[in-house]
């Protein structure tokens, strides 16, 4: 699936999107896999309460399923308007 990062999450991880092969079934399990990779992921995901997640472009929570998802995005709380 494609994993996308926005705003300071993108800056900490150092790229806007990447292709991830995973067996993770939930957002939380995917986050744990990413955190284990490298420090920059650990830095970006250290406080999940500061993050929001969208699965296939719909806002959801960290316990949501990602089975069959094409796109998972992580970003800080939004500041539109």
């Amino acid at each position, binding site marked *: 699936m494609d994993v*996308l990062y*926005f*705003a*300071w999450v993108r800056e900490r991880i150092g790229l806007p999107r990447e292709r991830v092969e995973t067996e993770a079934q939930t957002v939380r399990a995917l986050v744990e896999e990413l955190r284990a990779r490298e420090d920059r992921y650990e830095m970006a995901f250290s406080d999940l309460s500061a993050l929001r997640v*969208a699965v296939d*472009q*719909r*806002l959801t929570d960290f316990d949501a399923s990602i089975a069959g998802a094409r796109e998972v*995005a992580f*970003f*800080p*709380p*939004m*500041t*539109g*308007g």
Partner: protein
Amino acid sequence: MEVWVQEATFDVGQELNAFAKTAEGSGAVVSFTGITRDIAGGLRHMEIEHYPGMTERALGNIRLEAITRFDLTGARIIHRYGRLAPNEVIMMVLTAAPHRADAFKGAEFLMDYLKSRAPFWKREVTADGAEWVAAKDEDEDALKRW
């Protein structure tokens, strides 16, 4: 198309006039315009990042929800992204309804939702560097009234 996500600036008067024409017979048209402001002083420019695809989808859903809740006869959202100088137009919402109360409420509802549910992120660039604008608790709280 009633949702525009664009980098280019736009003419507020022209948009209002065009929308009012489509809303003939509605009785009430309300518009809100957001402008980049220099809160702390020293703002050089603002950068707005967004999530192409999800942005249009989220704004489209918020718009439909507003139309249903407040019996709007029309609603339009224009939101910019990219680099904006101080005092530039950032975004605009327009609503039309038979009566003014619904048009006002519809516009407020759209604003409250797009503040914290549309995937935009603002970054302020000053002489001291660049900083992401933190989401405000009161913007999240504002959703509870709907």
